């Protein structure tokens, strides 16, 4: 590395530490956001190593970003290490744990994984063609398979890990612990006091996921409309909702 390169790196690390100090000592959440943004390229770089294993790269990046957030939240200002050095094992650990927890899904026969890949497009096409969300039987018929195989293939695509944000600072592979509504409610629900909502955990989600949750649970939009708005398949929207809620819940534990 050149002298200039070393100087630039030292300056970046000094800026990182200042942002970390502002976050941990002053509670400056904008500093935290900046730290996350500054180190997302690291997450993307690490995530690419795990591409091609049956997961979409953007999903791996999302999991890795959780590891980054853990590292930032748990960083000890007394440590004489760079944030990138500290965060790397957290990010890698989170990604590995994700794949490990998905072991059941990854071991399913290739034919089911292929069926899952076809199904996403089939659901969107059938929804447009039929004018309603297709049943399992309709999906099976269009793909020339059985209802049972469709259900199994759906599960392949929806397996996820509940992303805990409680990983220890080591962050090694095994050490990471990690509107208007349409319904009606019983009076029973009004008996007790409120408790904290998942709200604060929303802040840790990527903007796209926050927007999808807002559309689903504040606007009350169906998945099909959300999928159109954000340009994803309905199945992908479903998976992002599920994963986001699990991540938010894990963070509160």
């Amino acid at each position: 590395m050149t002298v200039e390169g070393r100087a630039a790196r030292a300056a970046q690390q000094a800026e990182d530490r200042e942002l970390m100090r502002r976050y941990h000592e002053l509670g400056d959440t904008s500093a935290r956001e900046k730290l996350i943004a500054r180190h997302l390229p690291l997450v993307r770089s690490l995530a690419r190593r795990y591409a091609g294993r049956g997961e979409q790269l953007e999903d791996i990046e999302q999991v890795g970003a959780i590891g980054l957030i853990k590292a930032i939240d748990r960083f000890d200002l007394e440590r004489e290490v760079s944030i990138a050095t500290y965060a790397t094992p957290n990010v890698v650990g989170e990604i590995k744990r994700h794949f490990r927890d998905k072991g059941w899904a990854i071991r399913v026969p290739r034919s089911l994984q292929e069926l899952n890949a076809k199904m996403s497009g089939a659901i969107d096409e059938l929804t447009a063609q039929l004018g309603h969300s297709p049943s399992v039987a309709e999906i099976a018929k269009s793909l020339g398979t059985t209802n049972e195989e469709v259900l199994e293939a759906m599960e392949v695509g929806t397996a996820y890990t509940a992303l805990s944000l409680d990983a220890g600072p080591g962050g090694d592979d095994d050490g990471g612990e990690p509107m208007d509504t349409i319904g009606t409610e019983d009076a029973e629900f009004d008996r007790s006091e409120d408790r904290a909502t998942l709200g604060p955990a929303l802040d840790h989600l990527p903007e796209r996921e926050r927007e999808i949750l807002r559309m689903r649970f504040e606007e009350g939009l169906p998945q099909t409309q959300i999928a159109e708005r954000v340009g994803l398949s309905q199945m992908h929207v479903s998976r992002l909702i599920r994963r986001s809620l699990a991540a938010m819940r894990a963070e509160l534990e």
Partner: protein
Amino acid sequence: MTDRVEIEAPLDSAYQGVIRLIVGGIAEQAAFGFEAMDDLQLAIERLLAETGGDGRVQISFEVDDGHVRTRIGPLREQRLADALQQSDGETGTLSLRRILSTVVDSYGVEEAEDGQIVIRMEKLGTPLS
């Protein structure tokens, strides 16, 4: 005619996929569309996630064409009741209550023995015609 299905499973997260698969099969029997099925799966999944993962759970389904009634429990009351009784809060927050209000058509709590509770939910499938 109403069909009744009962299962008992560990609350351990390792069984989430198994329960999802069963709920998917139940929804398929009720002729739910994909989205209604997904909603029912999500409702049950989020409820079970609030139980902490210890012990076992009984889930029963009453299945009609286009209609599934689900009962989950008995469960320890305090942990889940707290989560269920959150207020919707201000815009930008998300409670279990809001999630359930969105994804099922109705839900409620029944008191069971020993201070435990049973959660019941009703979900109507989107008409397929």
